[in-house]
């Protein structure tokens, strides 16, 4: 079933056209990878989908579960199951990870008319999910991302993903800067969370992560446009040719 449908999306940032007619359809159960050179608009697309303010939608539409996504505030999108793992997670001094997740999970559960967790249940769920990303539970009492290493921040994103169990998860360069162990942890997290009812959009600069998370589709983004789509083989070709080649010649013929 179609989960997300992006049609001819054109977006300006500070009067520059950054997304220039994106078309993309994601169905339940699928994993899509979006690859592209720096500055091609990957993070912009992710932020627009997650509901960040400051973008001017020039043209096009985004449908999510039959709703006009672009009209919903960011928190409602999250409550409806959209999740963005940030390329640069934000530090929030004074708010503990535990408090952050408890607030988020309970807000989402309230929205969905589910009972909120009590403190004990909640702690158990958190401990279990922390294990999934191999984080020591002591991090739960630390301030959100404050003083975390790059790898810890990325693992924390996956921890939050596991806590919130979204329907559509967008991972923005979660693999960048990770060593091989952290990469494996992130990939395991994603693989254990995927099922036939949810979908993932994995934004990455490198093919590396796609050895662990096997995508159904790979799209190449350049200058705000998807210039080519294919299966996982396309990622390997991209790696081989390099982004400079793409920038000069456009699509790869095989």
């Amino acid at each position, binding site marked *: 079933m179609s989960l997300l449908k992006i049609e001819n999306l054109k977006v300006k940032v500070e009067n520059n056209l950054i997304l220039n007619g994106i078309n993309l359809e994601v169905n339940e159960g699928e994993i899509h990878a979006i690859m592209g050179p720096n500055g091609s608009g990957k993070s912009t697309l992710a932020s627009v989908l*997650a509901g960040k303010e400051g973008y001017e939608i020039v043209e096009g539409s985004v449908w999510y579960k039959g709703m006009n996504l672009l009209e919903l505030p960011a*928190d409602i999108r999250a409550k409806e199951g959209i999740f963005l793992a940030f390329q640069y997670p934000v530090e929030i*001094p004074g708010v503990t990870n535990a408090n952050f997740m408890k607030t988020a999970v309970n807000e989402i559960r309230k*929205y969905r008319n589910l009972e909120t967790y009590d403190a004990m249940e909640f702690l158990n769920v958190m401990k279990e999910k922390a294990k999934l990303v191999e984080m020591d539970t002591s991090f739960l009492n630390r301030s959100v991302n404050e003083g975390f290493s790059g790898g810890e921040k990325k693992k924390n994103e996956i921890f939050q993903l596991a806590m*919130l169990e979204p329907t559509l998860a967008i991972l923005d360069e979660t693999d960048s800067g990770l060593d091989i162990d952290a990469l494996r942890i992130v990939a395991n997290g994603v693989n254990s969370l995927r099922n036939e009812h949810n979908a993932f959009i994995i934004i990455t600069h490198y093919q590396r992560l796609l050895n662990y998370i096997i995508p159904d589709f790979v799209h190449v983004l350049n200058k705000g446009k998807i210039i080519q789509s294919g299966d996982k083989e396309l990622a390997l070709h991209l790696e081989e040719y390099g982004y400079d080649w793409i920038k000069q010649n456009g699509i790869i013929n095989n």
Partner: protein
Amino acid sequence: MTQNIQNIGLTEIVARYYDDILESSNSAYMPSIIDIKKKSFNMLIKNGLPTLKNEEWKYTNVQFLNKIPFTFERISYITQKADNLIRSIINKLSQKNYLVFFNGKFLEEYSKIEHENIEIINFKLDSNSLNPLIISSFNKLDNTDSFFSLMNTILVESGIFINVPKNNQIDKPINLINILSSEEKNIITSTRTIINISPNSMLDLIIYNYSDNKSSVLNTAVNDISLNEGAQLNLLLYQNEDKNTITFTKTNVNLEKESNLITDTITFSRGFTRNDLNVNLTGEFSKARFYGLYIGKDKSFIDNHTRVEHKVAKCQSDEFYKGIIDDSSHCVFNGKIIVSQEAQKTNAYQSNKNILLSENGIINTKPQLEIYADDVKCSHGATVGNIEKDAIFYLKSRGIDEFTAKNLLLKAFAIDIINKIHNQDWVGIIESDLVKLLNLKEIN
């Protein structure tokens, strides 16, 4: 003395009191006290009520005080309201160790202190013998005295003297609980606290001010604190007063060699508050860490003036004040650091961070540095901003609505200071007052 004095101006009100009490031939005070009060009165008349032209009062307009018909009538019978209030506070303290004051008057029957190794005196200035430390404390008049600290010296009739003898670690905190409440009359109250901590002793002290008034209360407080060699004081000043309360505090701390001051000034008052904190580092290797948090709501005015003077070498001062300014409130932070020529190897840090939540709120923040030594590490910074947009988006992207996200971030901003308070009872009390004050959702 009991008649109402109509709109004659505050200076004149003080002058009439002075004439009544001190110029009368049958004054009960000792000559030394009369002398101090006279000197103070002369200074007060000479200076007059400060105006905006005075650098120290540039943002702090006190002329409205001339329009309030204050009376000197004492209201010290305990109302049911005050009784409930005192009991509810006492109930929240896990260590029952407190002195209670009502409209400036010490209430022995409500107070409870279980300390052997400590001297606590409720002194009366009209008694015929006073501890020399009390007299010398009153004698310290200088150019940091304002109209209001002078007024305190002229008007005050009693006070509390706490003396910790040598080599005593007083582990049980002492709570000074000041309740103000007046239903009809515009009253003036004065409190005086003198603390002496002898060498190598330690004290935990909390000064709590709460008020609930239907008429105006003008309250002046002077705290004079001496830390002798190797002494340590943890001091929390927590002000939670209503919109009808006008408070002026002056806290003087003198630090001798290797002594250590840790103090937090938390102001949630909704009326008018001016705090002067003067820290004098007079002995080598002494350290002062003074933090503060102020929340401006409605039409409140909160002014924190701090002044730290490094008089000798190798001392450390660490200052950090945070403020949230909402509604039509007006907050002022003025932090003065003076490093004298002899004070080499000084470490002095100062930071002031503000969140301005409304268009009608005002914050004036100003560091003032006077550095006369050359081997000094000194840093300072002041910021005024809003709640960070990126942080709000991060929280929203996890399903937290904008209102709750802002709540969470505001609370986090303030909690940063609150969590550093040394006393866990008060961390809890202040945190729950904060939630009420900012209309935050209780989030656990």
